[in-house]
């Protein structure tokens, strides 16, 4: 009798456990197909009947290479993966070279490149994700958090932690853990950083020389920039002192310099209310207002599209300075018909230079990939192998994150001789926390395109005053982000 009772209880216990496992497995995000397990250091994770189903990534990595030698022990993986990217201009070539190098190192593997114009690619990705046939590896210039939260991205935490190179922070110029993870203290990593960007100040040497004005340097403040911009504005010659980059970028840098610890009160996912209407906000937006409508030393937004040159007015030689991304140097500014220079962004006050490395280029892997191991290898190749990182550096679009490569001549002295790469490398390594500013919001375009950009444009023409602008943005932003937060699934 006793044994029978026990066995029934045992039976119940085991069936409850199995039912629990089954339920959890059913609730978990889509698992990729089973991999050939590769001999390696890790773990028992695949065998325990627990909720590791949630992490959805079988362990088992290649024996990773040290920073100098390519992988020797890794068995080569076969299969085909798709690498989804947007148009990088001349740097597209670097992606092809990376694909070829990877294929050479892993015979039997094939990397298919899909390149679409920027913007179209996000739309296409959304459609592919919705339809369940996403590309395997996705190149992003921001965190694809919304897909992560929907369980559509592979959790890379274990791979990352088990990797001999990636897990060593000293080998890299920045904290390689997912910026989201870093900021919000989650324990899951979805992005693998492969490069960084920094905002920089470009200036047209010819215009400065013609006005006998000394070049900008790393001691400049924003007030210096405003003064010089005014001086170099000449309506008769249709010349302006400064041209701003995208509003999101430029407002972001200014804002962040004011309060680097709190990064950017603007589009983050988690605030219940936005906080534009404060001292910092007024300061930042007044700057736009002054430059645009008071000094009239900034290129009018309405005319930005009319210059037949990369870089709009700056590229056409009509603007003395522009705040831009360092990727411009590797892309369109290669062939500008005038001499130009690069320096750090101005600061809010003298001798105050917080870290401004706030954009990262990353690889993410779709959870529905049929080749998770190969996808991981490819992503890792781009981020942590010397060969991959060197090719990234030579592409001159991102700054490599592997320290050795970032300080190598290939990056600091590109073959086509552009100035300023040392600036970007140094700026990327400024001490300080690294955050990825935008768009952490769920939907990339909505708040900026509907409210933010138009507000800044109205400011620069004088239609709106700074006080009105910040009040308006709070009025629109608070319910928008509150709604977004409400609809978000919780971050595990």
């Amino acid at each position: 009798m006793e044994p029978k009772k026990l066995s029934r209880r045992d039976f119940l216990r085991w069936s409850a456990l199995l039912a629990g496992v089954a339920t959890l497995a059913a609730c978990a995000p889509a698992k990729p197909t089973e991999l050939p397990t590769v001999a390696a250091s890790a773990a028992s994770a695949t065998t325990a009947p627990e909720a590791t189903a949630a992490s959805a990534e079988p362990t088992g990595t290649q024996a990773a290479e040290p920073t100098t030698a390519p992988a020797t022990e890794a068995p080569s993986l076969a299969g085909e993966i798709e690498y989804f990217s947007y148009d990088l201009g001349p740097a597209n070539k670097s992606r092809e070279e990376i694909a070829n190098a990877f294929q050479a190192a892993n015979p039997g593997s094939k990397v298919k490149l899909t390149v679409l114009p920027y913007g179209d690619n996000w739309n296409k990705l959304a459609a592919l994700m919705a339809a369940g046939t996403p590309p395997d590896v996705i190149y992003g210039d921001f965190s694809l958090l919304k897909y992560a939260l929907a369980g559509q991205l592979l959790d890379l935490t274990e791979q990352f932690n088990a990797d001999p190179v990636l897990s060593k922070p000293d080998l890299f110029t920045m904290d390689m853990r997912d910026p989201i993870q870093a900021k919000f203290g989650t324990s899951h990593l979805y992005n693998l950083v492969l490069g960084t960007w920094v905002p920089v100040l470009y200036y047209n040497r010819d215009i400065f020389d013609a006005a006998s004005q000394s070049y900008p340097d790393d001691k400049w403040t924003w007030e210096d920039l405003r003064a010089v911009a005014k001086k170099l504005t000449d309506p008769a010659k249709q010349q302006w002192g400064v041209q701003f980059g995208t509003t999101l970028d430029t407002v972001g840098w200014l804002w962040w310099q004011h309060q680097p610890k709190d990064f950017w009160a603007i589009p983050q996912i988690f605030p219940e209310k936005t906080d534009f209407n404060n001292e910092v906000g007024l300061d930042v937006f007044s700057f736009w207002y002054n430059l645009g409508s008071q000094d009239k030393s900034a290129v009018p937004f309405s005319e930005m599209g009319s210059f037949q040159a990369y870089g709009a007015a700056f590229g056409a030689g009509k603007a003395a300075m522009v705040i831009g991304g360092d990727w411009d140097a590797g892309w369109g500014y290669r062939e500008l018909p005038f001499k130009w220079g690069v320096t750090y962004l101005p600061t809010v006050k003298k001798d105050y230079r917080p870290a401004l490395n706030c954009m990262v280029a990353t690889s993410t892997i779709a959870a529905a990939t049929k080749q998770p191991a190969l996808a991981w290898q490819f992503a890792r190749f781009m981020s942590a192998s010397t060969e991959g990182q060197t090719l990234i550096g030579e592409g001159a679009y991102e700054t490599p994150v592997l320290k050795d490569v970032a300080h190598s001549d290939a990056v600091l002295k590109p073959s086509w001789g552009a100035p300023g790469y040392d600036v970007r490398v140094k700026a990327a390594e400024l001490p300080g926390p690294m955050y990825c500013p935008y768009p952490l919001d769920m939907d990339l375009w909505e708040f900026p395109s509907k409210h933010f950009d138009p507000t800044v444009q109205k400011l620069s023409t004088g239609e709106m005053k700074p006080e009105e602008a910040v009040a308006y943005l709070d009025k629109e932003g608070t319910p928008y982000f509150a709604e977004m937060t409400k609809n978000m699934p919780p971050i595990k």
Partner: protein
Amino acid sequence: MIAYGGRWGGLPHLPPPPPAAGRQGCAWPVATPSGRLLELEEASVQLDRALKPAGPRANAHRFRLSLQRREAIACALFIAPAVLGFLVFSLFPLLTSAALSLTDYHLAGWPRYVGLANYATLFGDDLWWQAVRVTGIYALCVVPLWLINSLALALLMNQNLRGMNVFRTIYYLPAMLSGVAVSMLWIWLLSYRYGLINTSLRLVGVQGPNWVGDKRWALFSIILMSQWSVGWYLPTWLGALQNIPTELYEAASIDGGGWWARIRYITLPMLSAVIFYNLIMNIIWATQLFTEVFMVTGGGPQFSTLSYMLYLYNNAFGYSKMGVASAMSWLLFLAVLLLTIAVFRSSPAWVYYEAERRRA
């Protein structure tokens, strides 16, 4: 974007066919049964009855029914692919999108039922009202302009002068070109600094406005661009004009009417059926303005050219708000439907159907 009235739904930018031979001037002709065939059937039934000795009447009945039924079956088979296509590619997606309009769906995850919240959101959305306003202004300007300009052109060309064929070719050609290519061309023509229009103005010392970058001019530029394709309607106007019997004009000139009277009392009424048709199609087409604003202004400086379809596209593919986009499309559908019904209802007052007169 909107392909040929195909499975993408929607109206292609195409003119209606010229009315068939003037006899069926009504825009929605009703099929007349093949009277003669019915007579023949009747005759054969009678013959059958006469020849068959004392056969049960059921036979004759069956013969007759089966003929009708055979025809019905044949009809069903003929139209089956089209009906199937309608069900699969139009009705089913339509119902799905109606359902979607009641959900919050972001393409990542599952749709979440929210009832009429999307519609409420739209009515409270400033940008939605802006899109309605922009599209309304565009349609209000463009529809009459299209009708008047193309008709004026057709009237000019309806004369039997030499070389009219060449002119017809010239005016018709721009209308056949692709929306994307045309938009690219106009972007280049309207460029503030280097576009042909402004450089030509500069030659005579006038500083042209920023056609595409100035929010006061952008919508005007889009409207202007649209007039390049007035030639589309030439074939239908010309066909209809040629169907007007010349006796009427001769009678008018005998009665002493000038050219304006001729137009007003003869041409326009005789064309009213085609005007009616074109009016409806133009309304439908104008409210779906997309390609030009998408390519040339992207919604325009500060949303001054944010057409309804563009805002819909932004919601669907930019902000991934599928539910809201579906709601928008249903509202558009309703608006267009109401407008069309209004035009239909008003039609007895001003549309004249030749066919009806002849029948009476």
